[in-house]
């Protein structure tokens, strides 16, 4: 090996050492969201929902599965769904545990996202509290007070 190549390989080796450290740190970073052991509960439908979405199946309707409004269906046309006790909400809840403007479901790309609008008692996607917009897989229960809704095709 000529001297120049040797020197370059030497520098390259040091660069690779640090590249390994950086690659390892990337793995660490991807874990940060699952913060110190407080793992998001794993709904069975989560991964399945993702696969269904990948096949191009988008949610067509929203169904109330528990609570005073059980059985209510709202068909989804791409416009955001407002949920709360306010009269102008898309889904008006008569639930003591719900806030006036409680949560919003909105379509981004082909996925629906649920977002808490600063409610008093919180919105739960399956059993995890919604703090940032979360993608809603098909069939995953969203709990608002005593009301549970889910997306169906």
């Amino acid at each position, binding site marked *: 090996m000529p001297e120049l190549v040797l020197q370059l390989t030497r520098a390259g080796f040091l660069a690779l050492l640090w590249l390994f450290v950086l690659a390892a740190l990337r793995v660490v970073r991807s874990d940060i969201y699952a913060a110190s052991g407080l793992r998001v509960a794993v709904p069975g439908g989560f991964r399945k929902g993702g696969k269904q979405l990948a096949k191009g199946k988008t949610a067509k309707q929203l169904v109330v599965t528990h609570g005073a409004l059980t059985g209510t269906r709202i068909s989804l046309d791409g416009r955001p769904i407002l949920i709360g006790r306010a009269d102008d909400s898309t889904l008006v809840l008569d639930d003591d545990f719900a*806030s006036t403007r409680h949560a919003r479901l909105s379509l981004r790309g082909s996925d629906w996202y649920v977002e808490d609008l600063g409610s008093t008692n919180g919105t739960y996607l399956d059993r995890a509290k919604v703090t940032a917009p979360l993608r809603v897989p098909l069939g995953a229960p969203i709990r608002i007070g005593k009301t549970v809704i889910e997306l169906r095709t």
Partner: protein
Amino acid sequence: MALPPGVLGSATTHMTAPGSTPATPTRRGTELTLLGFVLGLVVLAFVLISENQSQSIKPEILLYIAGYAVLFGVAHLAVRKFAPYADPLILPCAAMLNGLSIAMLYRLDPPLAEIAFSGGNGYSNAAPKQLIWTGLSLLAMIAVLWLIKDHRTLSRYGYTFGLAGLVLLVLPGVLPCSISCVAGAKLWIIIGPVSIQPGEFAKVLIILFVAAFLVSKRDLFTIAGRKFVGLELPRPRDMGPLLIAWAVAILVLMIEKELGASLMFFGTVLAMLYLATERSSWVWIGIVLFMGGATVADRLFTHVQTRVANWVDPFADAQGDGYQMVQSLFSLGSGGIAGAGLGGGHPELVPVINSDFIVAAFGEELGFIGLAAMIMVYMLLAMRGLRSGLAVRDTFGKLLAGGLSFLLMWQIFVVIGGISKLIPQTGLTAPFLSAGGSSLLASYIMVALLLRISDAARRPQASRPKPQAPIAEASTVLVERPT
């Protein structure tokens, strides 16, 4: 309607990023990729060494590379089978340090053999031995993973481990010097060609004992004791285990003339007490006890005085007692920022370069940049251990992972601090780097325990079903009635 995925807000993309989906991927693929990366590094290291030493690529390096690749391939498959949810970083980090160690020993063998022959002594190559020990250690790791399906079963044998650990510690001290002395330190058991350092295994056993003991007696330590000058002192009878640990550490120091091992046990036990009780008073008590012990040791033992003198000013006796320290400093100094390149320096001038002082060889040939990367890898390993401890649900696992990770970091601090004259030098091995089977074997048993704990921490709970209230009845915490 469909937008490209990049348009999604950054707050939402993490939900879809690979590896962070809440469906708990096993992440074995990540481990394999990182191991592949490590193999590339090791290949490059061997090529560089061969080029620098003999201006050609020797065919024998293929044997080392193939052996190394096969061993870690098997280890990876074993982890896939026995601990599928284990942390993906632990094995590659250990593999990287171990691979660089084999490469460095291969690089050090020719000059060390030359020195030995010119002095009329025999020399057997360290690199093939290290590769064989790596194989045995990985086998031990696989055996631990295979035998121990749940780390909590270990907590039942706490006292047995403690007793075994103490016996292993004391054994070389009571055996005749002919089978336990190497270079003035009574640390060994030498049977024929095999020499083992039982202290390396004792440290793992003692950590297991302390973790099991603290779990069973934890409540006792958190009972408020007497207050003394603003410091909460634990009750004297709760002090028992700490005093025993301290006494053992000092005993080892006295019998085996080894400052390093006692420092190791003392610091680790103290860290675990602190982890278990969250009381800073233990740390203060520990520091006071350490100061007392160190002062007494300095008075009593001449070799401790020599080491302290070498620490204060190694150049005072640069050709005598300070020779090793001075050579180590020269070695690190000549490496500088970018190092001399693998095979480009003269680390063989430092006495015992291939075991206690191997970090100086890396410092000389990879420089500050390379050595810093290696320290980062150690820190990543310890960090992943601590993280597994945070994530695992049982107290024993938490204490065990915390203790093992602390021990790793503490040992690295004492070793690198010693060779760089930050603290007095102690005869400790650098885990995964130093030549020596005992150290490697014990290190991989620690890795196996960490893998087991991280597997328990990340394994989805579905495999251990927990009764949960139906979603509609799950508690909604009523903070305030909405108006």
